[in-house]
C-alpha cells in the first residue's frame, strides 16, 4: 500500500514543519524547497540575502527557574530548572526596541525560519513569513521563537528527565496552562535583556499565548498580533482534542505515559489524534478542492475493506499521522491540548475587560473567513472587549479558502497588514510608561 504525500495548497501541514507534504508552487513563489528541488535549498543557504531566507540558524537553549527560584505552575505543581529551546533571527538594536516574539501553535517548535545546516531540506515552519524583506523583516527586527513549556522540541516537557532523577517525567510532569507557557517565555525574553517587545505574534494556540502576554505582562509589549485565535477554546475545539487524547490513552503502547524506554509508544493513537486534528485545520472548500473523491490508485474501487488508503484524502491523513509520530511526543500532546482546553482568558483574569484593562499595547486581530476551529466570531469577541476598554485595535477578517491553516499559508495577505502595523508601532517609539 503506497502512501504518497500530496502537495499543494490547502493541505499544508498547519502546526508543524512536515514540509514535504506541502508545496508553494500553487502560490507562485519563486523559491521552492523540499525533496522536489534540493538545489533551491542549497542556494537559499549559500546566499540568503537573495531569496529572503535567514540562512543557517541554530537552536539555542537556556536554563531558567533554577532552584530555589522555581516556577509555580497554575495547576499547583513546581518546576525548576526549566530548559528553554529558542532561535533568534536578525539583530537586536542598541536601544533593544526592535524585538518580536513568535508564539508557536500546538505542535510547532522554536525553528520558525531558516535551515539547520546547508543540506537541510526543510526550513522552519514560518519561513515564508520570517526573513529579510518578509512579513517579519529580519533586516529590521530581531525575531525570537521558543518552544513551549511541556513541548518536545527542546524545552522542558514530559519527555525530559524529571528533577527527581527517576527517568522521564511522563504523566508526572506538572499540569501546565497557557499562562505557564507565557511566564516561561517571559523569563527567556528577560534573559535576552529585552524589557519591552515591539510585538508578540502568534496564531491558534500561539494567539492564545499572545493574549495571555497582554494580560499578564501588560508593560512588556508594544503590540499584540493575534491570528486565527480567540480568548477561549470553544466546545467544538475541546471535543476534537478529547478524541485525540482518547486515541492516545487507549493505545496499548501508551502504558500510562511510561513508554520512553519502549521500542514503540502509542504511535497509532498519536497518529489518529493528528489525523482528526488535521481535518479541523482545513476548510470544507480546501479539502474538497484538494482531494475531492479522487482515488489514490486507479479509477475503480477495490472492494476491499483492508485498504485504508483508497481515497487520496485517506492517504494524506495517514501520511500526516505517520510523519507526526516521528517528531512528536504523545505525552506532550496530552498536556498541550489540555492547556488549550483550559485556556479562558476571562476566567483567569476575572473578565475579558479586566484582562485587557492594564495594557497599552496596540492590537492587531485577524480571523479567516473559512476557519471553523476559531471562527471570526471569536476574533470579534476579543475586538469588542478591546474597544470596550478603549484599546487601540485593528481587526481584519481575511477572505481565504484555507480554513484555520490560512495563517500559515496566506503569507502575502498577512504581510500586507502586519508590515505597516509593525512599522507604525515601531515609529511611535518605545513609549515606556
Amino acid at each position, binding site marked *: 500500500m503506497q502512501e504518497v504525500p500530496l502537495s499543494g495548497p490547502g493541505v499544508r501541514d498547519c502546526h508543524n514543519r512536515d514540509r514535504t507534504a506541502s508545496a508553494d508552487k500553487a502560490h507562485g513563489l519563486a523559491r521552492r524547497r523540499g525533496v522536489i528541488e534540493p538545489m533551491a535549498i542549497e542556494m537559499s543557504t549559500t546566499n540568503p540575502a537573495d531569496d529572503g531566507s535567514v540562512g543557517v540558524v541554530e537552536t539555542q537553549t537556556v536554563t531558567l527557574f533554577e532552584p530555589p527560584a522555581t516556577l509555580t505552575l497554575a495547576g499547583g505543581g513546581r518546576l525548576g530548572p526549566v530548559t528553554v529551546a529558542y532561535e533568534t533571527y536578525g539583530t537586536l538594536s542598541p536601544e533593544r526596541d526592535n524585538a518580536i516574539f513568535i508564539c508557536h501553535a500546538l505542535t510547532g517548535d522554536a525553528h520558525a525560519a531558516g535551515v539547520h545546516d546547508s543540506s537541510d531540506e526543510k526550513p522552519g515552519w514560518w519561513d515564508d513569513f520570517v526573513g529579510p524583506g518578509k512579513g517579519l523583516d529580519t533586516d529590521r527586527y530581531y525575531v525570537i521563537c521558543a518552544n513551549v513549556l511541556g513541548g518536545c522540541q527542546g524545552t522542558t516537557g514530559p519527555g525530559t528527565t524529571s528533577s527527581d532523577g527517576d527517568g522521564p517525567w511522563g504523566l508526572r510532569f506538572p499540569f501546565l496552562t497557557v499562562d505557564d507557557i507565557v511566564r516561561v517565555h517571559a523569563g527567556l525574553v528577560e534573559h535576552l535583556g529585552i524589557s519591552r517587545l515591539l510585538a508578540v505574534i502568534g496564531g491558534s494556540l500561539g494567539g492564545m499565548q499572545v493574549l495571555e502576554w497582554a494580560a499578564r505582562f501588560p508593560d512588556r509589549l508594544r503590540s499584540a498580533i493575534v491570528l486565527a485565535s480567540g480568548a477561549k477554546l470553544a466546545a467544538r475545539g475541546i471535543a476534537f482534542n478529547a478524541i485525540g487524547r482518547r486515541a492516545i490513552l487507549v493505545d496499548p503502547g501508551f502504558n500510562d505515559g511510561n513508554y520512553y524506554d519502549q521500542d514503540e509508544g502509542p504511535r497509532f493513537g498519536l497518529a489518529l489524534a493528528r489525523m482528526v486534528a488535521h481535518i479541523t485545520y482545513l476548510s470544507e472548500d480546501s479539502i474538497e478542492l484538494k482531494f475531492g473523491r479522487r482515488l489514490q490508485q486507479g479509477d475503480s474501487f477495490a472492494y476491499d475493506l483492508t485498504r485504508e488508503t483508497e481515497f487520496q484524502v485517506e492517504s494524506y491523513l495517514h501520511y500526516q499521522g505517520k510523519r507526526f509520530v516521528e517528531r512528536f511526543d504523545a505525552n506532550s500532546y496530552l498536556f498541550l491540548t489540555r492547556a488549550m482546553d483550559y485556556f479562558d482568558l476571562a476566567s483567569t483574569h476575572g473578565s475579558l475587560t479586566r484582562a485587557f484593562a492594564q495594557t497599552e499595547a496596540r492590537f492587531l486581530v485577524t480571523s479567516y473567513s473559512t476557519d471553523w476551529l476559531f471562527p471570526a466570531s471569536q476574533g*470579534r469577541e476579543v475586538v469588542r472587549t478591546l*474597544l470596550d476598554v478603549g484599546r487601540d485595535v*485593528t*481587526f481584519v477578517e481575511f477572505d481565504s479558502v484555507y480554513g484555520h491553516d490560512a495563517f500559515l499559508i496566506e503569507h502575502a495577505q498577512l504581510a500586507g497588514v502586519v508590515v505597516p502595523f509593525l512599522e*507604525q508601532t515601531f515609529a*511611535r517609539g518605545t513609549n515606556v510608561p
Partner: protein
Amino acid sequence: MNASRYSMPGFDSGLIDELLLDQVDSGSRVIDLGCGDGRLLARLRDERNCQVLGIELGLVELTGAIGRGLSVIQTDLDRGLDDIPDDSFDTAVLSQTLQEVRRPTTVLREMLRVAQRALIVVPNFGHWRVRLKVVQQGRAPVTDALPYEWYDTPNLHVCSMHDIRDLVEQLGFFVIREIPIIKGRPVERAWWANLRADSALYVVERTGE
C-alpha cells in the same frame, strides 16, 4: 460612462474633508464608517487631536489606513456595528456611503447608538440636472457625481435632500445643521438647495437640544 451625458461637478473629497473637520470638536472621539484609506481620520488625529477609529470593508483601503497608523475594524456596514459599544464616540462620520448600504435606517440608528452626533454626506439626486436627465432622456441619470450605470452601481438608493430630512425625522432624530454643497462649495441656507446642491452634509443628533 456615456460621454454624451451631462456631467455634474464631481465630489471634491478634499473640500468635504475640510467641511467635516470643521464640524468635529478638537480632542473628541470620532468613528468614520467607510473610512477608506483613513485620510480624514489621520487629519482628525493629527490636526484636531481626536481619538479615531475607522470602519472599512475593503482590504486595500484598510491596509492604507493601517499604514497611517490608524485603528481599523473590517466590517460590512450592512452587518451593523455589533463590535462597537454604545456611546463610545462623540461623532460618527458617514461620507458618501449612506446611499450604498442596504439598510440606511439600520446604519443611521447604529451611528446614533455608538455616537451622540452623526455627520452624513450624501449625494443629492434631487439636483435639477439629474431631474432633467430623467425627464429628457427617460434614463437613469449618469453624472460625474453619480458616474454609474443603473445596473452596475454602488448606489443602491436614490434620495434627495428632502428624503434624507424625512428619514432622519422619521427615525426620531434631529437635523441640527444642513449644509448643501453647490458646485463644490458649501452654501448654508441656499435658495432652492434641493434643486441646486450636488450633495449635502447633515449634522444629525439624537436629541434636538
